[in-house]
């Protein structure tokens, strides 16, 4: 593992150099707070920004993504034959991704890249992407990442982890992808490994100390699915919910999607959109039957998926990295930390 230091004076120049080979994504400020976006050639990432309203999942999994097209023109030989849409899979780099968001991408990977099927759109985008994370020196009050199995300086899923040292960044190169990116930027001032690691450890401990929010998850796996499913607390949990799906859209680990077809002139396009288990349409059968027709059923599904089904299925903890976005964005203040606690402490009578 090698370390480099990047003088902040060189940061913008390095990014510019890397633009020859990379499409650069990073946090920028807009009228709705901070967002992670592809950066125009004259724009630089706002590295000291707060947590982005939307998570970085859209870099690999856009809200709307074309998958296949076909011509419906019967004079064409291949009419009505659907073919994959060409994708721009040139290298891209995400600068300033929060460490817990990188961990979230690893969770989403479990879904899109599994032993049975690989989703080519997600997987190819993933392969093309380098994740350059920035450790979080001052975690937000909604941040409960340490108890969700990651943390402000977690390395999982990152290619580079940087620490902000005021006038410079100290960067820990974690993968070959990270090394290639650093080279492309011309960042090559190496730093002493032992010293640097010690510094990272100090920063990490300091940051973790500042995290005050937490969830208890230790007893979730020992509960039975049906006991939790049939528990009496769901009506109360769901009461305020308006089923808007904001929680699922802002969530870095929510991966569900819908597939839709549209026709324009003689071209048919099949594309996918983020979908949400909060919507009754999500499970609405064509017959009219809906296995999750009521609000309570849908709210329960979201929390059961994140805090129980996922736990049982993958044995990798909860499907939540503790970023706190859903807590901050929920218009009716449904708080996953409270729900997790309720589930974790539940004893069937």
């Amino acid at each position, binding site marked *: 593992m090698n370390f480099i230091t990047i003088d902040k004076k060189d940061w913008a120049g390095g990014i510019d150099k890397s633009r020859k080979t990379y499409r650069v994504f990073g946090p920028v400020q*807009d*009228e*709705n*707070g901070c*967002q992670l976006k592809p950066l125009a050639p004259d724009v630089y990432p706002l590295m000291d920004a*707060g947590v982005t*309203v*939307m998570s970085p999942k859209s870099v690999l999994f856009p*809200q*709307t993504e074309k998958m296949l097209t076909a011509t419906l023109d019967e004079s064409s030989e291949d009419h009505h034959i659907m073919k994959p849409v060409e994708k721009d899979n040139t290298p891209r780099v995400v600068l300033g991704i929060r460490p817990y968001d990188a961990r979230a991408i690893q969770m989403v990977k479990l879904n899109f890249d599994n032993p049975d099927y690989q989703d080519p759109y997600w997987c190819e985008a993933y392969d093309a992407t380098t994740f350059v994370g920035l450790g979080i020196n*001052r975690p*937000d*009050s*909604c941040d409960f990442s340490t108890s969700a199995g990651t943390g402000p300086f977690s390395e999982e899923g990152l290619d580079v982890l940087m620490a902000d040292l005021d006038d410079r960044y100290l960067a820990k190169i974690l993968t070959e992808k990270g090394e290639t990116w650093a080279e492309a930027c011309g960042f090559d001032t190496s730093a002493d490994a032992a010293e640097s690691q010690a510094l990272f450890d100090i920063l990490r401990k300091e940051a973790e100390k500042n995290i005050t929010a937490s969830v208890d998850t230790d007893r979730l796996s020992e509960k039975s699915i049906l006991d939790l499913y049939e528990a009496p607390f769901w009506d*109360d949990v769901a*009461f*305020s919910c*308006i*089923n*808007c*799906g*904001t929680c699922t*859209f*802002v969530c870095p680990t929510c991966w569900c999607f*819908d597939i*839709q077809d*549209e026709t324009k002139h003689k071209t048919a396009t099949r*594309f996918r*959109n*983020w979908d*949400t288990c909060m*919507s*009754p*349409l999500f499970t609405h059968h064509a017959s009219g039957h809906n296995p999750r027709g009521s*609000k309570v059923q849908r709210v329960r599904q979201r929390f059961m998926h994140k805090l129980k089904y996922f736990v049982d299925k993958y044995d990798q903890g909860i499907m939540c990295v503790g970023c706190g976005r859903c*807590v*901050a*964005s929920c*218009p*009716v*203040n*449904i*708080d996953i*930390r*409270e729900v997790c606690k309720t589930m974790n402490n539940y004893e069937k009578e």
Partner: protein
Amino acid sequence: MDTCIEKIRTICADLLAKGEVQKVIGFAEGSIPMASRPIAVTSKDDVEKLVFNATCGLNLANYVSEALPKDGKIAVTAKGCDSRNLVTHMVENQVSRDRLYIIGIPCTGMVDKRKIAALFEDEITDFIEEGDTLTIVSPQKKEKVSKTDVLRHNCRMCTHRNPVVFDVMAAEPVEEQSLDQPFADVDQIAAMDPETRWAHFQELTKNCIRCYACRNACPLCYCPTCFVDESSPQWVGKGQDKTDINTFHFLRAFHCAGRCTDCGACVEVCPMGINVRDFTRKLNKDALELFGWEAGLDMEKRPPLDVYSPDDPDDFIK
């Protein structure tokens, strides 16, 4: 306003103890600063959970139909706007008056949480409301702000702060505001040339993620299947196409024409900070100017676009 909570709790405890209502819909303290949460209280022992403050910006009329038991009554706490939406619900046959016990709350307005957040560079960690004085704390600073200065725009423009229908009032009525220019914001948009105006609306919806929080928080949006969710025929595409996003916003606004009470719930809940009221306000202005109509004030009258009248101002209908 904060003084009325004890009275609300007493009223609710009494109603629940006597079995006059099966539950009370109100607000509970949120788990993070500047948040509140709609709750249903079913036991008198839980009335302490009820709060009322300047963050209770959702419209509880939205919860009534779903919360209504098969028979019996429920109580609901209602600000001026909530009460107007209850009236709209009754006029539109969504709920009948005798099923509701309305606890009226005279309201001095709700705070604009985004406006407050914008006063701070870091996050807000505490929010204390004492009368008109708000004490707002972040890791870097502590600031006292007058609530009047950070009210939501719809609350600044509100001329019905007192509930229009109630069984009991939780406090003395407050003075109603009188406004010189009740629709300055609409006039400003109307004065734009067509290109600028179009650009304004394009800009307005550019961040929409189609979560439909605006629709779902709106007491008017109770259609069993919203037109955007209809599959045969499918009126609107489901993706992030600009045309589809705009179609949703335009149509929803028109569907609420003459029914909207300008309660601001749509803006309150939007995770992307879209001022949805830029659409609905123009229609409220039209309803007032063309029909002399403000929604939710009259239990006897259907909204203007819902009735035929020989003196309709528009020629085509005659």
